[in-house]
């Protein structure tokens, strides 16, 4: 099987020095320093097939960006085997980077002082894109992202949302088969987010572009990715379908009660003692959430028992969101099976 990204036991360690405290410590630091080794990425293995859209998620400092930087050839791995697009990213750098597109949400790759179209023109030359292909392909990209009116403006005059759309277009000038997106929707409003998601889906359908996406916004992942890879402290703790994650973890429902008066945990517990219910207090003593199994009989019974005994101001039944699932997983530190 040919994988577009094939990584085995990839590892990256950083050496950093810690400063001693005080003036005396600072003087001692001049001569000897305390070094500590921090493992940012800890023996991860993953395979991604052509045309997949994969969400790569994890908390801040989990090692997501470090992985992306190793996959794009910016950082050299401490150890491990990396093949992306059939090449070693670090060894064949100049040839390799022609086959990928990268967008870093937090850094611009356009030239700050000049018009967007000049940056495009330079990138076109840099990637040796033939005129004919450029004209048809870019016309399409420009239209879909609606950046036509921005082309003659210098980058420094664009808003974040405008700039991000231009960044995406810039990353796609050479129509790479593999696209890395590092937090592409950070700080963007809902409309721009939707536009970018639509665009990514379109690119994926049209050219079979493989997309690896890191984000803190799980709605991006829900909208785009079938597969998620979850990282915690440099290790992969989940790699599989997003749907399955929901099935395994989101099996329950939550009933949110707002009572007319305050309630106590013991009181609610005793009301519903014949079912398995987990009560959690909300923002104050009259707001409570009951987590129950996803079973109509149990839901009705619990609601009946509670409503029979206490006055209700508001009631809502919600499914557990992906965000909560992920939070639960991080709290437990591992993914339970089955």
């Amino acid at each position, binding site marked *: 099987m040919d994988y577009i990204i094939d990584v085995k036991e990839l590892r990256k360690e*950083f050496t950093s020095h810690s400063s001693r405290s005080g003036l005396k410590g600072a003087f001692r630091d001049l001569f000897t320093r305390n070094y500590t080794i921090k493992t940012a990425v800890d023996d991860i293995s993953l395979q991604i097939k052509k045309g997949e859209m994969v969400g790569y998620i994890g908390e801040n400092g989990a090692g997501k*960006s470090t992985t992306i*930087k190793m996959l*794009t*050839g*910016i*950082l*050299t791995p401490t150890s491990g085997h990396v093949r992306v697009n059939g090449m070693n990213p670090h060894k064949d*750098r*100049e*040839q390799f*980077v*022609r086959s*990928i597109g*990268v967008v*870093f949400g*937090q*850094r*611009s*790759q356009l*030239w700050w*002082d*000049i018009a967007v179209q*000049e940056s495009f*023109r*330079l990138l076109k*030359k*840099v*990637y*040796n894109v033939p005129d004919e292909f450029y004209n048809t392909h870019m016309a399409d990209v420009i239209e879909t992202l609606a950046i036509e009116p921005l082309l003659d403006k*210098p980058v420094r005059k664009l808003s974040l949302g405008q700039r991000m759309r231009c960044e995406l277009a810039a990353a796609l000038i050479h129509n790479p088969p593999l696209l890395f997106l590092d937090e592409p929707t950070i700080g963007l409003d809902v409309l721009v987010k939707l536009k970018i998601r639509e665009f990514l889906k379109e690119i994926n359908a049209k050219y079979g572009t493989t997309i690896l996406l890191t984000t803190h916004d799980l709605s991006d992942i829900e909208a785009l990715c079938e597969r998620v890879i979850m990282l915690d402290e440099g290790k992969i703790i989940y790699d599989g379908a997003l749907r399955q994650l929901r099935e395994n973890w989101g099996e329950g429902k939550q009933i949110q009660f707002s009572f007319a008066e305050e309630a106590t945990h013991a009181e609610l517990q005793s009301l519903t003692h014949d079912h398995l219910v987990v009560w959690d207090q909300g923002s104050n003593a009259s707001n409570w959430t009951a987590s129950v199994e996803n079973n109509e009989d149990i839901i009705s019974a619990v609601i009946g028992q509670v409503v029979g005994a206490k006055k209700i101001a508001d009631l809502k039944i919600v499914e557990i969101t992906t965000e909560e699932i992920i939070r639960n997983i991080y709290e437990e530190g591992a993914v339970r099976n089955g």
Partner: protein
Amino acid sequence: MAKYMEMIRIRFLMMLAYRTNYYSGILIYSINIGAYYFLWSAIYGDKSSIQDLSIVQMTTYIAVSWMARAFYFNNIDREIALEIKEGKVAIEMIRPYNYLGMKMMQGLGEGIFRILFFSVPGMVIVYFIFPIQFTTHPATWGYFLISILLSFIINTQINLLTGIATFFLFNNDGLIRAKRVVIDLFSGLILPISFFPVWAQSVMDYLPFKGISYIPSMIFTEGFKGNEILHGLMNQTLWALVLFIPIQLLWTTAKRQLIVQGG
């Protein structure tokens, strides 16, 4: 090659984006030349020549060295340092080009812009104010052109070295500033090398700095004659070649231990 030409063009556009810089540049260069002219005419007093240079030759030397400086001078060391500090170098590493080559082309774009839009108009202004003699020998102009091209290469190589040093020092503002003073002084911009004490001159024979300003200016003022010109050009070429070695070594090491700062 097309991408490197395009980079020169982009640099042109960037220079044009800031007009005030452009106008004030001409002014600053003219003031500098004026200040050195008055200083030297006071030093010369009634003497017709010092160290075989007449006052007219001296003025021409000053004017030419400042105008040549507009061509070879660039801030790419500062830019590299900034890109490393801000982590922008990561973006450069995902581009299919040679980073250092691209930086050199940016410097060249800046240099060509300055020589066309600073030096030529500046030289015209200066020509009408101060007693300057332009040579009429086409051969001298030819040697001079080759010579300033080489001085651009040497100066840019030194800038690249200083810039790459940021990878190891993390913050090298001090080094950049020191380098600038050393180049202005030891390249013969402020004082022609022949005015230094003999022992200092022999030390400078072993340093690359005099290839930056002294040699092209001496060629232009015809302070160098015959074989001296060829020796000068050979000295420059040699340094341009030799300096490639430490750049390659440093760059290879830097890439291996590249840590992108700021995440």
